């Protein structure tokens, strides 16, 4: 409970200070929140269910491409129908995950890692090769962000608050999910699947549902990602994007939800902001990774918990 208040407090301070930040920093803050949603969806799988997914960028990609295609080809999603696109984005992420889950959930451990990687690359292949729909390697340039009534998302500060709203909603939804009996049984599966099965739980179905929910939030992150960047490109779907999401969770602390946001903050600001200041930013990022793994196997969040998970 305490961690929620701390999170809300920190986000409130950031939200209050945001109007005074530079335009680039606001963009980065919005990026942190979008990647935070994505990282939380990975955390649901890795931290709560024990499924290390290396293909989460696929769902972000599906949501982002859907948004971009609807907006540029049909002009849908640039007014109040933005909400419809949000729903469609989540649905398409969930549907893709529901399909991929049929193959992936049979596997566990490193095999799960491999099969999600392969499925993720299928989505990349589609994005890269299906020129008429996805623009191939060029990707799709968006023509502008939505305007809902008087509220123009093209203003970065407003868009930041919108993303913040989505982040909070996602956080509470996922928090409810993991605190529910369903969430507890996911943790049970993570700890010892065989015992859960003997107790009479349908562990396949539990894992499948978690996988689909994670896909839905990946899709949501994709909708916001497309509008944030103004361009959707196959490199958004490529393996490094999935690896990044996994790293953010591990760095922040898996099985905490908040850890995803902490990890996203560290990675985005070290990579995007530090890179604009010094050329040796990669060493800093690498050092942070190594130190975290050596001294904080529970991630940065372990610092606030006295080391106990």
């Amino acid at each position: 409970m305490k961690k929620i208040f701390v999170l809300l407090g920190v986000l409130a301070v950031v939200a209050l200070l945001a109007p005074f930040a530079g335009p680039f920093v606001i963009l980065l803050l919005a990026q942190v929140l979008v990647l935070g949603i994505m990282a939380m969806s990975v955390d649901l799988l890795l931290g709560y269910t024990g499924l290390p997914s290396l293909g989460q960028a696929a769902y972000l990609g599906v949501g982002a491409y859907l948004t971009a295609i609807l907006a540029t080809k049909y002009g849908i999603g640039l007014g109040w129908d933005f909400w419809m696109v949000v729903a469609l984005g989540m649905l398409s992420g969930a549907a893709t995950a529901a399909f991929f889950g049929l193959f992936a959930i049979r596997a566990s451990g490193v095999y799960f890692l491999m099969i999600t990687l392969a499925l993720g690359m299928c989505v990349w292949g589609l994005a890269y090769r299906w020129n008429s729909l996805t623009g191939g390697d060029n990707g799709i340039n968006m023509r502008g962000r939505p305007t809902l009534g008087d509220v123009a998302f093209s203003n970065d500060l407003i868009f930041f608050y919108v993303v913040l709203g989505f982040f909070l909603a996602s956080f509470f939804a996922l928090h409810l999910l993991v605190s529910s009996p369903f969430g507890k049984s996911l943790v049970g599966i993570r700890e010892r699947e065989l015992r859960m099965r003997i107790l009479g739980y349908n562990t396949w179905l539990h894992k499948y549902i978690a996988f689909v929910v994670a896909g839905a939030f990946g899709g949501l992150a994709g909708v916001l990602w497309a509008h944030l960047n103004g361009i959707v490109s196959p490199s958004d779907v490529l393996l490094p994007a999935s690896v990044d999401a996994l790293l953010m969770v591990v760095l922040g602390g898996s099985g905490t939800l908040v850890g995803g946001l902490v990890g996203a903050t560290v990675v985005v600001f070290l990579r995007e902001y530090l890179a604009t200041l010094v050329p040796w930013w990669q060493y800093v990022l690498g050092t942070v990774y190594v130190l975290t793994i050596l001294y904080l196997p529970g991630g940065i969040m372990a610092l606030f918990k006295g080391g106990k998970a």
Partner: protein
Amino acid sequence: MKRIALFVAGALAFTPAVSQELKIGFLAPMTGIFAQIGKDMENGFQMYLDEQKGSLAGAKVTFIVEDEEGKPPVGVRKAEKLARQDNVHMLVGGLLASTGYAIAPVSTRLKTVYVLSIAAADDLTQRDLNQYPYIVRTSWTSSQPHHPLGKWACENGYKTVVAVAADYAFGHEVLGGFQKAFEDCGGKVIQKVWPPLGTKDFGPYIPTLNRNADAIFSLMVGPMALQFPKQLLEAGVKKPIIGGGTSYDEFVLPAMGDEVLGHVSALQYSAALDTPKNREFVRRYREKYGKVPSYYSESNYTTAQMIHEVMKRTKGKWPGPEKFISMMTELKLDAVRGPVRFDDMRNPIQNIYIKKVEKKKMHGYEKDELWNTVIKTYPDVGQFFTYSKAEFLKQPVYSREFPPCKYCN
């Protein structure tokens, strides 16, 4: 503190001279597989600035380099950072054609000049030009050197060609240009193979190449260029090779072996260009950076020179984005690569050199090295080559599907 004091003293002493400032935001890949190309790009621009002691016609230049990683979305993010946080007067650079297509809308949205010093995406200065009032190109369109190359190949007796080209906008446009001119003159492209950008292992592609072709056309970018000729030789393929400009550019040439001798390519620059201007440029560049300049270096050096020419005319005062673009396109320059002027679609008209890789001594260097010897010059080539502009713009932009592969089976 001392430095600040010195600076203040300097500022007081030369107030009229350093009163103006010109902020240039430079986008190039500094990490990833294209990092070395990014270095060549930056070096070229930096060398010109250093020669001018960091000020162009009295305007003190602040040169901010950002890493675009060779990824379009990162390029967009960094362009936003440069334009909005650093308030640069202009963006320069962007390596990949796809990055060019991604950054151009940013320039329109933020009303910031974008000088395409490398990114060769055809449509930016063709069918899409009207959407982008703040761009000007100082390099080339992807298809520009490859129209003459297609004509050259046909006139030199090649009848049928198989093509292997990197699968992205640049590859499509390079091969498209070659194919159009080649087939209009009577040649036939009988097969097209598209390995993804960044492919290192061509094993799956080489055996599929049609053995009946007279020659192979290859378009490689970055590290791909090094691997393809080697693996072709290992596979025992000994056909003549005609390449897109970046396949044998000086960026990779020194790292190549004898397997590339005799390969022909086309571009608006060759380090082996035997003119006093280029000899001098190669000498100075090599002294400074320890390697032969590539087209990436020359193009950015010349871009800096063009910006300088504009600033000379305004006496170091920033003329505003609209004025800057129009003044830039009025320039006629005797550049390192040869005479350059602009067409009415803000793309350069320049010499295109057909080049052959040879091992020899050049520019007074003692060792035998690989050089792109110029074997034919097509003067004053524009982006539409000998085609009429109206006719050319009626056809769609070159893509994987256009021109269609009529003679493929």
